[in-house]
């Protein structure tokens, strides 16, 4: 026989350590940012700072996690911002409708469920374009990127919809243990997605498809369904993020809700360790990436750095974070 001195199979803990190590670059960047802020930024070490940052980062984090799944299959989703706008536009339409005002409880429930269903429909569209019609993801999702926001504006006639609805606003302003509700929501989603990616059939197929789609298909993997699935999940999460934005503001602005979110989400996913060619789905990495992007934004704003200079600094930090990521991997 060839080789007999096989080492006893090591527990798979090693794989988890390896995954953690990959995230190291991001962790280092985050710690550097925290230390810098603690030293420089006034009043940084306060609970309220934590509160503000968590409430602002939650939407990016939620969308970035969905994006991470899409990227893990080798795809990309540019339509997340538009989906946010669409879902966000629907919610007030629903709870402010005649039925919604007549039955407020039902109205709020419907105003959460129906927009999410609309988002799911968008994801279905993206997924079918990519998986069934084999359109390249950037282009497939560009369609909704362009027209999704338009649909939202058509629905609202372009008007800003403002409202007062404490029950609905809980999504964006509620607190649990003194921290924002949406932060807990993001955490719960992360835990759920982490479980999906590491423990389930679906997660395994996601990674296999990103790693080698042909091989996954020939091994009997449901390639189409899984691909559609990730776009649906991503869109649903984007829809949820859209609802949160609307809830915080007590206003839905279809023109601005989720504007440029796709770039932030992709940047967060990649800074968090996602590989654009697929095959890797670091869910907590996405949260880490979102935190880094959020903290950069916060740092620059709080220290009075001008917007235009802030853009340049943000560029440099994204590059640095991804570069560190890159070297750790090799």
């Amino acid at each position, binding site marked *: 026989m060839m080789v007999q001195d096989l080492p006893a199979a090591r527990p798979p803990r090693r794989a988890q350590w390896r995954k953690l190590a990959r995230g190291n670059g991001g962790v280092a960047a985050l710690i550097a940012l925290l230390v810098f802020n603690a030293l420089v930024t006034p009043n940084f070490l306060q609970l309220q700072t934590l509160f503000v940052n968590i409430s602002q980062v939650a939407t990016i984090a939620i969308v970035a996690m969905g994006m991470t799944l899409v990227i893990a299959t080798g795809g990309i989703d540019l339509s997340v911002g538009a989906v946010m706008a669409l879902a966000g536009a629907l919610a007030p339409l629903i709870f402010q409708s005649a039925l919604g005002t007549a039955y407020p409880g039902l109205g709020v429930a419907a105003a959460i469920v129906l927009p999410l269903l609309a988002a799911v429909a968008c994801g279905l569209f993206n997924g079918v374009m990519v998986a069934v019609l084999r359109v390249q993801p950037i282009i497939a999702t560009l369609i909704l990127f362009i027209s999704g926001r*338009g649909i939202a504006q058509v629905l609202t006639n372009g008007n800003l919809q403002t409202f007062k609805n404490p029950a609905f606003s809980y999504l964006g302003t509620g607190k649990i243990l003194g921290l924002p509700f949406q932060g807990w929501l993001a955490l719960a989603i992360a835990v759920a997605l982490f479980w999906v990616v590491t423990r389930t059939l679906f997660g395994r197929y996601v990674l296999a498809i990103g790693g080698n789609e042909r091989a996954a298909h020939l091994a009997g993997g449901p390639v189409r369904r899984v691909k559609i699935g990730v776009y649906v999940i991503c869109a649903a999460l984007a829809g949820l993020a859209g609802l949160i934005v609307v809830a915080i503001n007590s206003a839905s602005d279809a023109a601005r809700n989720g504007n440029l979110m796709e770039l932030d989400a992709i940047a967060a996913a990649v800074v968090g360790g996602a590989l654009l060619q697929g095959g890797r789905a670091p869910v907590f990495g996405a949260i880490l990436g979102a935190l880094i992007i959020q903290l950069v934004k916060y740092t620059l704003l709080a220290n009075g750095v001008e917007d*235009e*200079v802030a*853009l*340049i600094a943000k*560029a440099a930090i994204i590059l640095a974070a991804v570069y560190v990521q890159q070297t750790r991997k090799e």
Partner: protein
Amino acid sequence: MNADALDLRRYVAHSPQSAAVWLALAALVGFGLLRYENFGSAYNLTSFLNYNSMFIVISVGMCFVILTGGIDLSVGSVAAFTSVVAAYLSPYGIQVALPGAVLTGVGFGALNAFSIIVLRIPPFIATLAAMLAAKGGALVISGAQTISVDWTSNFTRMGMESAWNLLPWSIVIVAAVVLVLWIVIERTSLGRTVLAIGGSEDASVLMGLKVARAKAFVYMLSGGCAGIAGVILASGFGAGQPLEGIGWELSAIASVVVGGTLLTGGLGSVPATVAGALLLGLVFNILNFENGRGTISISAYWQMVIRGGFLFAVILFQARVTARRPGAGRPG
């Protein structure tokens, strides 16, 4: 599609995706001519070409990047940045401003190339960062103002006057650039290396091709093309505009893909990219004319929906045409 490009039958057989865009373009032009008076007027033609020359040149630069399997998200911001540079240089005339702005664009391209080739950062992220940096930089160097050009030098001729009273200078220059680039891709080693990299970068390295050089070239080219667009922007609109260029990268990518180029690289066409850019530009023009007919007024929101729908239709059409190719569905 090399020397045989002119053999139409072969062309259609070998690149059905590209054929689709020409068909769609012809159909849309025909539709416009039949439905709207003045659509075919010289005024509309020249102003349409003048405006879209920017998108054409950017799309062709993008096409090269995409052929290597990369992407360049920075083109819009770089165009805005270089328009400011061109505006500052405009008193010295176009002979200084054009090279100056193009070199600036090439500089951004070199920066992208450095991050991608040396730092090994994925193109999507590297150029995303460059996009932010160029945008911020444009605002910084302009003091967040539009910068007036010098109307007394010959600078504005490029964007506002016609060559031989026929076609705007902008489109003439862009056409020349496109032609040269077409020859580069079809007839030079550099061009073929670009295609090979997109086909398989590993294989290209092992074949001993100058991969790094070709990759650096495409990003610098794309930056340079954005620089040309920046000059057209400054000279055609009389100002350096730090806020312009938002979303141009996506239009350019869409043009390239509608032109049948694979986003994964290795397969694509320069002229079809031009057709793609014209096609997407034409949608705006048609929508404006449709609004002018007065029968229905298409609101800005409906226009977005229609544009997305149109892109959807073109993609579906393309997918159908491509599906008929023998052996489709099998990778390779």
